[in-house]
């Protein structure tokens, strides 16, 4: 019995030790990056969205960069109009390709009406449609390449931006992003994500906390190793980097964005982000669709582990980036899945220890002391991230931030459920997915360059 508990304790200590060390190294590095850039932690907390060409963060043309937006859509009439009108600009000739993946609604017509001549709707028809986001992006990418060739543009001066149909770039985002690509080793950049409807309910506030504090700070930390992970919204890539990946840079993987990040990194392209711009999107308002979305993410993330040998074997990836990417890829396998079991075994052990302690000492003092120790050991990461979350977004208030920070006791179960569902889907080779639905939005006023 003792040997069994010793194994549980050792495994739990290793899992938690490495997970906490990895997380706080990334976050610590992120804070250092912010300090070096002279940017406050809460710099973007009050930014507004929908005017990406506002020149306050730099010239939106950024040393002559051209931008092509790719917006894959399937039944997005509720949100696509507002998104396209926020990206269209009378002053800048940036192109918007809306890839209508055989929508049943008026997505294409609404997108055309919202963006005018700057919008090209690429209509895909069944049975060659609805084959995944990667396939849709690759079709849009083919149109981008054709257009770039026709205009005689230099692919190294062309940026391809993938947006979700409900995505909005922060004011001045384009100037901040193009400045990153002036470093010609940068192949991709990912913006931090905010949840637009975060004040609606706890679940949305929790998603915003995950994106805006946990994910965003670790992403800023990855700037140090140039291994920032790409996401599906606010993802920028240099066209010449994408062209190194052939005609289909986005794979059929469920997390085609993570796959793209790995492909670019192993070819020696730097991946970065900026604290001066972000993208916002709708969160998911109820639990069941959230679990469905996260299970898909987990499945894609877990399947991407098979690319770890490429990362470790690439002579183009720095040592820091190799270990960082390896750890990131391993998180579901080495943290979420084992911890979902170990955590409960540790709880049982604590209960047994409680009984032993109270048998030999004053129960009130013993239980009180034990509770304090358990709280300190269990919640110190929550206390630190709560402080960071408050500084990242002071509008949340101290108490609410503290509550959100402690909510991981419950919200961790979302991760556990999704990780195990994803594992079973991998074992059963089930890869089909229902797309996340949106809430209807009113189109915003067209964006301007000044």
């Amino acid at each position: 019995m003792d040997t069994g508990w010793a194994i549980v304790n050792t495994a739990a200590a290793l899992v938690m030790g490495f997970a906490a060390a990895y997380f706080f190294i990334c976050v610590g590095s992120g804070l250092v990056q912010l300090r070096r850039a002279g940017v406050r932690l809460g710099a973007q907390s009050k930014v507004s969205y929908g005017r990406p060409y506002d020149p306050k963060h730099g010239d939106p043309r950024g040393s002559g960069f051209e931008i092509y937006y790719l917006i894959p859509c399937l039944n997005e009439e509720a949100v696509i109009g507002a998104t396209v009108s926020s990206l269209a600009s009378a002053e800048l000739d940036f192109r918007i390709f809306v890839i209508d993946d055989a929508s049943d609604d008026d997505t294409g017509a609404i997108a055309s009406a919202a963006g005018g001549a700057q919008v090209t709707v690429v209509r895909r028809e069944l049975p060659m449609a609805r084959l995944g986001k990667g396939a849709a992006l690759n079709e849009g990418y083919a149109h981008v390449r054709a257009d770039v060739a026709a205009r005689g543009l230099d692919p190294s001066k062309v940026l391809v931006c993938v947006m979700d149909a409900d995505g909005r770039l922060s004011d001045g985002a384009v100037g901040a992003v193009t400045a990153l690509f002036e470093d010609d080793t940068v192949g991709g950049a990912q913006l931090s994500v905010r949840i637009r409807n975060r004040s609606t309910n706890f679940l949305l506030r929790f998603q915003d906390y995950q994106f805006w504090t946990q994910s965003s700070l670790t992403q800023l930390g990855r700037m140090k190793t140039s291994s920032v992970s790409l996401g599906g919204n606010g993802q920028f890539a240099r066209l010449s980097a994408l062209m190194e990946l052939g005609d289909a840079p986005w794979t059929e993987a469920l997390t085609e964005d993570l796959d793209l990040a790995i492909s670019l990194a192993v070819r020696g392209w730097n991946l970065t982000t900026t604290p001066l711009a972000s993208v916002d999107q709708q969160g998911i308002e109820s639990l069941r669709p959230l679990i469905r979305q996260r299970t898909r993410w987990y499945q894609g993330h877990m399947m991407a582990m098979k690319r770890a040998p490429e990362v470790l074997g690439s002579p183009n990836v720095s040592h820091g980036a190799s270990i960082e990417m390896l750890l990131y890829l391993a998180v579901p396998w080495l943290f979420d899945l084992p911890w979902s079991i170990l955590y409960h075994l540790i709880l049982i052990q604590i209960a047994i220890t409680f009984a032993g302690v109270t048998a030999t000492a004053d129960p009130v003092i013993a239980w009180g002391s034990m509770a304090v120790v358990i709280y300190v050991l269990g919640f110190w990461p929550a206390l630190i991230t709560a402080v960071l979350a408050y500084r990242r977004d002071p509008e949340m208030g101290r108490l609410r931030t503290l509550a959100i920070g402690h909510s991981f006791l419950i919200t961790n179960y979302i991760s556990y459920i999704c990780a195990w569902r994803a594992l079973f889907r991998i074992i059963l080779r089930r890869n089909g997915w229902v797309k996340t639905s949106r809430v209807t939005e009113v189109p915003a006023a067209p964006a301007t360059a000044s």
Partner: protein
Amino acid sequence: MSDIPLFVSRWTTGIVLFIAGIAAWSFGETYRMHEARLEAGVVNLLSPVKAVAQDGTAVVWTGMGTSDIMGFNITSACSSAALMGGFCVVTAILLVAWRSRTKAILFGAAIALTLILLTNLVRLSVVIGATRVWGRAGFDWTHMYLGTIVTVVGLFVAAGAYLFLLMREPSGAPARRKAHRA
């Protein structure tokens, strides 16, 4: 070995470390006997109390030469053997999987293993010291509460140092990324 002139191969080193890790779990009693000797040395070094490790056991006797002799048995749950074994196995896997980082992996493992060992010696010393001063209450508080916190902090620092050393770029190494892509 790709970046250090060792006469044994990366695979051999990895296999040896893997076996050492399994041995730390399987032969924990032997490990604990040596840990007890080290702990006795630490007590002798840091305090006027005389301590000895009993041959063939993992018991540290303190207060030798006085009428107040106390014995402390280092059990498997109190030993650093299991964690040391875990780090050895992790290191072995990394060595085999990642040929270009041999030196950093071994250096990081050496630092991490040292930190784990030292942390546990500190923890045991705190328990022994508190028990000698405050008796049973001192033992309960430091063994159950303070000792656990010391262990967790030590492990976090060890894992952090390990990862930090692995992620560092070698000094003077040429840039591995392409300098001009555009």
